[in-house]
């Protein structure tokens, strides 16, 4: 009965996936419920802000610069055809603030900080550090998960803003300094066309949503990882893959909601 076996296998996968989503949702609510103590002891969040946010800065700045420079080059080549080179600043800024900044920064955050979170928590589980904490009557969700979650959520908009700012500078270097687009029109058109609420705020909201999703996936995968070397490596891979797909899918949904007809 090969068809029955195939259906059974599909059914099992669907049930597993639904069950896993349920467990992840419960994990998310527990994280929110137990977040109070980490806000009372804010130094726990600050410590995690350093390892997730500050330590991700280099990769964000370097990537932002190159993405901005590529946008400058490609944008100039395209706009030149229509005689609109002076709109290069607008194109670079809107691309970065609305899309590239939040999305690429979140993808980089997932692969740098997200994978590190998963591996760290998975290894803590494999070496019984989480069990030890529970035996000491310390709730690991309150002590380990919640500070990392909020550090990720707080870091993400700042990293995305940094990515966009450095990217605009990269576009300026290529467009104005190298190619020779007029500097005044580059900045003035950007200033006139970029709207704070429509563009910048929506970009910030996007990066906040990505911060919640990526950090939650990373923490859940680490907490749920089988306590073996293979289990931790598999969880780390899943964090990067699942986060990346979630970012791209959510980006479409959020863009459709925010910029529809704008």
């Amino acid at each position, binding site marked *: 009965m090969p068809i029955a076996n195939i259906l059974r296998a599909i059914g099992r996968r669907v049930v597993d996936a639904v069950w896993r989503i349920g467990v992840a949702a419960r994990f998310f609510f527990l994280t929110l419920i137990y977040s109070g103590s980490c806000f009372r002891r804010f130094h726990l969040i600050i410590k995690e802000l350093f390892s997730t946010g500050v330590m991700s800065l280099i990769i964000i700045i370097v990537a932002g610069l190159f993405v901005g420079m590529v946008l400058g080059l490609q944008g100039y080549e395209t706009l030149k055809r229509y005689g609109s080179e002076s709109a290069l600043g607008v194109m670079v800024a809107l691309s970065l603030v609305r899309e590239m900044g939040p999305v690429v920064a979140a993808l980089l955050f997932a692969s740098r900080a997200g994978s590190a979170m998963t591996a760290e928590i998975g*290894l*803590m589980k494999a*070496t*019984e*550090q989480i*069990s*030890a*904490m*529970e*035996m*000491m*009557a*310390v*709730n690991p969700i309150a*002590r380990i998960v919640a500070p990392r979650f909020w550090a990720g959520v707080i870091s993400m908009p700042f990293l995305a803003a940094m990515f966009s700012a450095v990217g605009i500078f990269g576009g300026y270097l290529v467009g104005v300094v190298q190619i020779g687009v007029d500097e005044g029109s580059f900045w003035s058109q950007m200033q006139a066309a970029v709207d704070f609420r429509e563009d910048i705020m929506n970009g910030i909201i996007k990066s906040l949503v990505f911060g919640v999703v990526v950090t939650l996936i990373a923490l859940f995968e680490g907490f749920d990882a089988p306590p073996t070397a293979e289990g931790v490596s598999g969880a780390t891979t899943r964090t990067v893959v699942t986060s990346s797909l979630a970012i791209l899918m959510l980006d479409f949904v959020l863009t459709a909601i925010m910029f529809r007809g704008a």
Partner: protein
Amino acid sequence: MSLNPLVEIRDLNFTYDKRPVLQGINMTFPRGKLVAIMGLSGCGKTTLLRHIGGALKPTRGYVRIDGQVMHELDQDGLYAMRRKMGMLFQFGALFTDMSVYDNVAFQMREHTDLPEEIIHDLVIMKLHAVGLRGAQHMMPSELSGGMARRVALARTVALDPMLIMYDEPFAGLDPISLTVIGDLIRRLNDALGATSIIVTHDIQESLKIVDYVYFMANGVIVAEGTPDELRASDKDFVRQFVHGEMDGPVPFHYPGVDYRQDLNLRA
């Protein structure tokens, strides 16, 4: 063993995935005593310890500690009980992102409002008791296996628990560290007036320090007694275990098909 034991286990049964792991376990741990639970790997010792710590719920029976049945406690009750317990994990389970000092101070900072000066003095005293005051600034990655176990022991007794559990405290230690850890377990138990439970298969070291021993095999208790009674026991299982004999009730060969048949030899 005692009229008022700290820990009582009665008719404890635990089934995992339809496989019985613990069957009809009855044990008593008197206050102030050091009791060992011994047996081969996979016989259910650690599962039993997890029941005592409240990490697992029994299928039938109960574990009662200081008058309270563990599996009936809610999370707050369980955490309140665990504050009176300490547990040393097999390889220490030190928090790798904290120094030796911060590991020992961890519970004091989490559960008390003591000022940092008093925490400092307490941590130094605990580390002095295990001989590692000089290692307070080191990170867990800089410690040897024996030192890590001693730091974990200092952390375990940080809040002077009434019940201390040890999960394979002698695993992977060199002979000197093994003697040091064994001696510390006995001395700390007596100094704190605590009750200790050691889960181990290191028979020689354990018999030197414990007051009473339970032997487990396949999820049931197969023998019990004082160290002297067990050394003199004529039970096959106990004799094989105590003297480390290769063959006996625990066979050397894992069950399989006939040897000749496996080699494709004709009779």
